[in-house]
């Protein structure tokens, strides 16, 4: 059988690897972005000089040939559903028996005036990394539009090169659509500690260029003018559905799939950031992409079972502050009780959420929790008293840190 995967991100590659483990199918992974699989969340570290591009490859180059996964550095232009082949930009059409779309997502631009100027860009791909390198050659000031995870990572990147950064955030506090107020406030302060001009309640009205078409500043909705030589748009990402929609596959926000990852077309599947489930959700995390890729490989080789999302967890890093979240910790805590703790320097924070005295989630800033233990407590619905008493079991900080065992959680008054 001939299996073709479009996209060599974590979803597509995990699928290909898992499929190879249990089958002898011919597997081809097509990507226009890079010849080899690399870790997208790590792009920032190349710009900061922590790593080189070569270091981002989770597998050495010989891995692909050894595992008989053919990698094709080409752009998939169109899918011919009738002839069952993929039309490529540079090579002959690629026939498939099974096609997996793992085309990921792309930055959401909102038609601001001036968004096509030189020096305006998003930051999600290898090409964006190269572009950023060029765009910051003689850049002293930059504006980041949008908070969120990409925004704060780009802020950290640019600060590492001594560039003055203004960050425009529409909301009244950083990422407060995801983080509850305490956490969001801590991150606000930390962003400012890193000398980033965090401008809350501020949106972009337009980007202004000079005669040569290069960006030289932005104007905010409240009329403020900020001079800059770089604008990074980080107002979220949307599923990359171009290939699917132009080939006649059903799409809504993402590529429409059922819970078995099947699209509207026979033998075509979609996984990862680009796929949208029947309930309307799109899962755009590294971990979910990996789970989906693995699950689909299982479906194709064995018994078809509907995908169920794993218990929720995620992590990120806001400059120096690591963030981990497990279970249910919504930004709006209405109807959910919390027990919280904050360190004296204000950079460490722990929240335990509970309902009816059953623990349902954790948020940790600057503290490492043991995933296995937290998820177990949530799954069991452990009592708040039990978790507070046994919190040391969830300590995953480096030895001698002694933070978690000394945490005294304060239960909020409901």
């Amino acid at each position, binding site marked *: 059988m001939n299996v073709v995967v479009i996209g060599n991100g*974590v979803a597509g590659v995990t699928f290909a690897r898992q499929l190879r483990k249990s089958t002898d199918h011919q597997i081809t992974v097509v990507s226009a972005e890079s010849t080899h699989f690399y*870790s997208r*969340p*790590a792009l920032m*570290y*190349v710009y*900061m*000089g*922590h*790593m*080189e591009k070569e*270091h*981002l*490859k*989770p597998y*050495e180059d010989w891995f692909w040939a050894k595992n008989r996964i053919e990698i094709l550095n080409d752009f998939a232009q169109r899918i011919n559903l009738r002839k069952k082949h993929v039309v490529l930009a540079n090579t002959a059409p690629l026939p498939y028996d099974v096609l997996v779309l793992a085309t990921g997502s792309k930055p959401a631009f909102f038609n601001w*005036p*001036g968004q*096509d*100027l030189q020096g305006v860009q998003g930051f999600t791909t290898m090409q964006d990394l190269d572009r950023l390198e060029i765009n910051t050659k003689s850049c*002293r000031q930059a504006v980041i539009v949008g908070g969120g995870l990409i925004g704060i990572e780009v802020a950290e990147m640019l600060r*590492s090169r*001594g560039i*003055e950064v203004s960050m425009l955030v529409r909301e009244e506090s950083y990422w407060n659509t995801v983080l509850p107020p305490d956490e969001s406030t801590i991150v606000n302060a930390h962003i400012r*500690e*890193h000398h980033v001009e965090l401008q809350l309640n501020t949106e972009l009205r*337009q980007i*202004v*260029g000079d005669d040569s*078409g290069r960006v*030289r*500043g932005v*104007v905010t909705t409240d009329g403020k*003018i900020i*001079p800059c030589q770089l604008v990074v748009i980080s107002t979220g990402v949307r599923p990359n559905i171009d290939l699917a929609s132009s080939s006649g596959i059903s799409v809504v926000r993402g590529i429409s799939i059922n819970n078995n990852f099947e699209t509207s077309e026979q033998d075509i599947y979609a996984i990862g950031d680009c796929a949208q489930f029947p309930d309307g959700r799109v899962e755009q995390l590294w*971990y979910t992409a*990996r*789970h989906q890729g693995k699950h689909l490989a299982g479906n194709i080789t064995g018994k078809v079972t509907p995908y169920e999302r*794993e218990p929720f*967890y995620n*992590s*990120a*890093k806001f*400059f*120096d502050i*690591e963030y*981990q979240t497990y279970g249910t910790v919504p930004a709006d805590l209405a109807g959910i009780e919390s027990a919280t703790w904050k360190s004296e320097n204000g950079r460490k924070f722990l929240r335990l959420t509970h309902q009816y005295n059953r623990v349902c989630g954790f948020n940790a800033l600057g503290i*490492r*929790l*043991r*995933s*296995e233990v937290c*998820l177990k407590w949530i799954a069991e619905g452990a009592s708040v008293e039990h978790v507070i008493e046994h919190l040391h079991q969830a300590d*995953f*900080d*480096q*030895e*001698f*840190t*002694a933070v978690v065992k000394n945490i005294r959680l304060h239960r909020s008054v409901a």
Partner: protein
Amino acid sequence: MNLIQIAIPIQAEPEASIGLQEKIGFAMLTFGIVVLVIGATGLFNSIPLLYGLASIGMSVVGGFVVTAAQLRDKLPGIKNDGIMFSKLKRRGLAGWVLGVAFTGFYVLLYWYPAALTHVIHSVDTLSLLMRNKPADQWFLYGTFYTAAVIIMGIRTIAKYRNSKYQLYRTISVVTAQLLFAFIIPAMLIFFNSKEFYFHYFWPLKYDVLFPSTLKGLLASNSNLVVFMGFWSVAMTFVATPFLTYYLGKRWYCSWVCGCGGLAETVGDPFRQNSDKSLAAWKVERWMVHGVLVFVILTTSLLWINSAYQGEVLGEWSYTFSKAYGFYIGALFSGVAGVGFYPILGSRVWCRFGCPMAAYLGLLQRFFSKFRITTNGGQCISCGNCSTYCEMGIDVRAYAQRGEDIKRASCVGCGVCAEVCPRGVLKLENK
């Protein structure tokens, strides 16, 4: 394009990032080294105290000044910014020059010590003070080594000060160097006892269990020297398996050992240069275990020879041990081990050549509670752990599969866990 003309104020240039304090520190460091080299001509032979202060003293103070300056205005946390752009730290010209300089120094030390005759005077005063006898090339080397470990140790502490593990570990390894490799051996000489390094054991200090050495120690009139004999045997055969079972090889390699001390301090800026490929791992396994076999063979031959009063093997076992001393002791651990820091990373010797590391590694791999735990499925395959592993372990390969890491070569420095941006790794004894 919808452009409108708006007057945008031009802002002032940001200030240059390299501060005055750093410049002064670097100037002092450079001055000290220049004075040291000039002294090689014998120009300062008549003023050893002044020579020592102006060369080594000045460099040490300069080193502190630079370290202190680099700490300013930085929040605690891992800051590996710009390492891959550095000519010094990423095998650029400066790195190669430093590598050649290191290597050159070892070549002089081992094969042309006469060239250092006058430089040795820089530590004469210190040697008289500490050991009641004039300096020799080894005291000079020891002084350099210890000073470098202390200065760069402070840098290491500053860099990883967000972590108590790194703080305690670095203090331990620096203190071990200062005490066991510098002060105590000097004191032993001062009090006319035997020069002895309490933190080096067989098979790293291979000759300590050679029949002639061990019998010599045990037959001594001095209780202290007899104790050294028992200490050597006990550390190798009792303490090492015991401690490694509970703590992993790190109790030695990154907390006590002098080679480890240099690697964790002077070598820290170069840790990213170790080769992470599978091919390198294969070479490593053959080499390091080969050296261990070599030491065991040598030691056994010597004991067999000794048991038969030299009749069985004659001169041969002696030649064998001389060969080991030259090829492994000098050429490998010194010249290649330290000289290649800037090119091959900070643990070339520990990884490819150290028989103690091989012995500890076998214990760690098959007989230890130590491991690096992976935190569920949270790895994002970023590669920081593998990149900054000085032992060239592809940590990510395990972490991204959600597997714990139990590798013979891991020295437990803990830097993979420090640089992990998602809190995925933790060193544990469980």
